[in-house]
């Protein structure tokens, strides 16, 4: 382990250390604790960018923890895919953290105890980073569990009835998918005798087909539950909307994408080839259509966004299922775009809630006049998600459609048509939100008092009308930063897409990954 790749474990280490320090500090000194969070996450972002540059220039960065050679020790690997996911996700978590500060200041909300929120949030980040960097399946499982354990706490934060109800579904489904993951690990270990992903990549090739398919189906099912691919997506729209806004936003942006990351890894490194391509294509089509049809009937903004999340996971699975370099490149780009956009939309839904006093479309109206800034912050990512050129959603969808048309075949053609239809229906759902919340006349009894149910809070002595119109600067800043980041994907579209193409090329040649983990090539 030399000085350069000592960077690799830092994205996992820093948030865990910061979380520990914050717990030691205790419930007081909120400013110090915020500073620690920001510094830790900013450092993770810097490390991730450095890793991305190094991985892009010098190939995958592997580090053998404790000096044990692979496959005995635990290996962390940052290739282009890991590094770019790491960079975007740490940028997004940082922005959401800033947003959460704004919410703290304004809320003084006893439903959301902050001494619990911040350490859990940092542990969630550490788990996410660990899942991206893990070089063996079991370490990836541990990363998933770190992240999930923190997410259980976050989704039920405050323990209100709605959150307990939603959290129960979420936790049980997550536990079940963890069991599936363990089953897949056990099957692979029994058959191939290792959990190191690089070693698995050539040992699985030697396995008899049916054995490898059992392991592949179990692994894909575990990832598909996390990614919310259609038949396994029913838990998501039920459990996400009731959590606090920053939590929902970061879950929607990141947690599902870790499932997608797992699917990409499994289909390129572990099980290359097109054994289950047909199954994945059908699942992708069903996710797109089922998700967007669900979104069309929703009248609550957050639930509507949760359903569009499911439908857009379908796009990413579509690109993976194509298996071509063009399809994978478009998928990687789409994942990056979608992490940012989906998080932004959920954050803006929080702003709408605060400004308009509700998230149900039946009770919103006239926000374009009363809150033009929120309108702009909603409009740009909404159009981006709907795929309006020249925004990044359009670039990603264009890449996917071109990859699909280049591939050809009856099923792929159906998917291309389905993707276009989904894009239109997404636009329809978001325009419905726009028309109802921003352009329509205000409702008859304007819900100008979002705290109507909160008068029993003895600490609250301010007049109610004054609070309904104030948007904390940090909340706006966090959302704005994410909108700017998503616009940067368009501005830097060329280089970014080229990077995604290089990442896809690297994914399609697993030998590079294997050589980074086993530099001597002495693999048995």
């Amino acid at each position, binding site marked *: 382990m030399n000085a350069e790749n000592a960077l690799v474990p830092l994205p996992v280490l820093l948030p865990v250390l910061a979380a520990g320090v914050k717990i030691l500090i205790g419930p007081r000194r909120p400013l110090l604790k915020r500073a620690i969070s920001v510094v830790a996450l900013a450092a993770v972002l810097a490390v991730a960018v450095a890793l991305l540059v190094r991985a892009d220039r010098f190939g995958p960065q592997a580090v053998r923890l404790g000096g044990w050679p692979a496959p005995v020790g635990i290996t962390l690997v940052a290739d282009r895919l890991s590094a770019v996911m790491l960079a975007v996700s740490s940028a997004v978590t940082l922005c959401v953290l800033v947003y959460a500060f704004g919410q703290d200041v304004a809320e003084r909300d006893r439903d959301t105890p902050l001494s619990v929120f911040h350490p859990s949030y940092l542990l969630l980040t550490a788990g996410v980073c660990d899942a991206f960097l893990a070089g063996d399946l079991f370490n990836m499982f541990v990363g998933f569990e770190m992240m999930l354990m923190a997410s259980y706490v976050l989704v039920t*934060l405050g323990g*209100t009835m709605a959150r307990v109800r939603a959290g*129960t579904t979420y936790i049980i489904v997550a536990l079940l998918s963890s069991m599936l993951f363990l089953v897949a690990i056990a099957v692979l270990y029994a058959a191939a005798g290792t959990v190191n992903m690089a070693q698995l990549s050539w040992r699985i090739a030697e396995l008899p087909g049916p054995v490898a398919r059992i392991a592949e189906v179990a692994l894909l099912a575990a990832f598909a539950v996390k990614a919310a691919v259609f038949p396994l997506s029913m838990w998501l*729209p039920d459990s996400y909307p*009731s959590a606090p806004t920053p939590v929902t936003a970061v879950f929607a942006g990141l947690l599902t994408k870790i499932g997608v990351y797992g699917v990409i890894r499994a289909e390129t490194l572990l099980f290359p080839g097109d054994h289950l391509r047909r199954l994945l294509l059908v699942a992708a089509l069903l996710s797109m259509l089922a998700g967007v049809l669900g979104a069309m009937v929703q009248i609550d903004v957050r639930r509507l966004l949760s359903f569009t999340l499911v439908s857009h996971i379908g796009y990413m699975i579509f690109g993976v299922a194509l298996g071509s370099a063009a399809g994978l490149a478009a998928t990687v780009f789409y994942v990056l775009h979608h992490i940012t956009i989906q998080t932004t939309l959920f954050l803006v839904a929080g702003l709408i809630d605060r400004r308009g006093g509700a998230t149900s479309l039946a009770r919103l109206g006239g926000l374009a006049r009363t809150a033009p800034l929120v309108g702009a912050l909603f409009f740009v990512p909404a159009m981006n998600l709907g795929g309006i050129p020249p925004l990044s959603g359009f670039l990603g969808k264009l890449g996917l459609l071109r990859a699909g048309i280049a591939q050809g075949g009856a099923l792929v053609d159906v998917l291309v048509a389905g993707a276009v239809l989904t894009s239109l229906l997404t636009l329809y759902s978001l325009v419905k939100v726009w028309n109802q919340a921003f352009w329509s006349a205000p409702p008859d009894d304007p819900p100008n008092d979002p705290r*109507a149910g909160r008068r029993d809070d003895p600490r609250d002595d301010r007049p109610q009308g004054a609070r309904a119109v104030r948007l904390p600067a940090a909340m706006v800043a966090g959302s704005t930063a994410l909108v700017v980041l998503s616009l940067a994907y368009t501005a830097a579209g060329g280089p970014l897409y080229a990077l995604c193409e290089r990442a896809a090329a690297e994914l399609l040649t697993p030998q590079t990954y294997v050589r980074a983990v086993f530099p001597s090539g002495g693999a048995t």
Partner: protein
Amino acid sequence: MGPSLVLAATGGTLVAAGVVLLLERSLSRLVVGVLVLSNGVNLLILTAGGPAGTAPILPSRGGPHRALSDPLPQAMILTAIVISLASAAFVLAIAYRGGRLSGDDDVRDDIEDLRVRRESEDDVGLRAERERRAVADPSELGAREEPDSDFPGGVPRDGRRGNGRRRDGRPRGGGRRDGQ
């Protein structure tokens, strides 16, 4: 020597029992189901390690030479046990909290799902009427399926019923869906 049949059969039985328990509505049974299921999966991992042998790393003293046990599955099982223990503890805490708030620990249906289902059964005209009424009187939604439940999750944010107090007389803290 292949893997032990007894271990495999026990693991299969545990997984089957766990799946049956997971289909229940009561959260405490779900916890037991998760625990049983995870133990079944742990046995599967143990079976994956091959036949049992002497303790790993330590050289065998005297006696006939036997192969070492594979230490990796045991390390993985230890990790998995710790994780499922923590998860089960958390779910139990949630079950307790849910029991305090609602009087039982059943997992409830999603309110919005009920709304969409009801709408799909209606005509378009009836649906608009219902929405209009629901906005005016939020207890229209959710109240029909659970007429006597004190379940604030189903009530839109301004829809405090009664005096805003729970059955135990404390102020209602859980009525809002988003906690902002």
